[in-house]
C-alpha cells in the first residue's frame, strides 16, 4: 500500500540523494579550491535538509499511527538537522578564509579585493 505520505517521502529522498551526488561530482569536476568548497558544502547542506526532512515525516507518520518512538525519531532528527545547518556554513567560511590566508588563489583571478582592503586600512588610520 502506497499512501500519499510515502510518495512525499520518496520525492524528498530523491531530491536529497540527487543533490548529495551533485556534491561529489562537483568536488571532482571543479578547477579550484573555492568552487569545490561551493559545491561540496552547499550541495550537501541542501541535500541533507531534504533527506532528514523525509526521516522527520516518517517519524511523524509512525507517531500518528500510535507508536510513541516516532516522536523521538522526529525530534532527534530535527536536532541533527539544526546542528548541520549551524555548523556547515561556519566551517565552510573558516576553510575559505584559511585557504585565502595560506596563499591559494582562484584560477584565472585578476583582482584580490581582500588583500587590497587589508593593505589600505592602516593607511587610512594614519592619514586620519
Amino acid at each position, binding site marked *: 500500500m502506497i499512501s500519499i505520505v510515502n510518495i512525499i517521502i520518496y520525492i524528498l529522498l530523491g531530491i*536529497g540523494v540527487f543533490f548529495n551526488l551533485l556534491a561529489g561530482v562537483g568536488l571532482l569536476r571543479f578547477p579550484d579550491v573555492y568552487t*569545490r568548497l561551493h559545491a*561540496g558544502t552547499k550541495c550537501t547542506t541542501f541535500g541533507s535538509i531534504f533527506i532528514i526532512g523525509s526521516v522527520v515525516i516518517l517519524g511523524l507518520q509512525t507517531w500518528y499511527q500510535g507508536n510513541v518512538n516516532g516522536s523521538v525519531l522526529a525530534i532527534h532528527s530535527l536536532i*541533527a538537522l539544526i546542528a548541520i545547518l549551524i555548523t556547515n556554513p561556519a566551517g565552510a567560511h*573558516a576553510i575559505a578564509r*584559511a585557504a585565502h*590566508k*595560506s596563499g*591559494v588563489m582562484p584560477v584565472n583571478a585578476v583582482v584580490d579585493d581582500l588583500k587590497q582592503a587589508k593593505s589600505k586600512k592602516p593607511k587610512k588610520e594614519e592619514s586620519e
Partner: protein
Amino acid sequence: MIPLANDYFLVLIFLFLAIIMAVIRIVKGPTAPDRIVGLDTINTIVIVGMVIFGAAYNEVIYIDVAIVYALLSFVSTLFIAKYLQGDDF
C-alpha cells in the same frame, strides 16, 4: 526494521558513491585546502548516513551519535582551518 528499510539502504548506497568521489578528491587534491574540503563533505554525508541508518533500523541512539558527530567534526574543521592559516591567530 521499518517497511521502507530497503529504500533507505538504496539511499545509503548512493551516499556511499558520493563519499567515494570525495575520497578521490582527497587522494588527488593538489593543495591542503582541497583535502579539507573533501573531509568536510565526507563528514556531512556521514552524518546524513547515520540518520538514515537510525531511521531504517528504528533505533534513535544512532541519531544521537550523529548529533555528537556533527558538533565534533565542526570543531575539528575549525582547528584544521586555524592551523592552515598561519601563525596570526
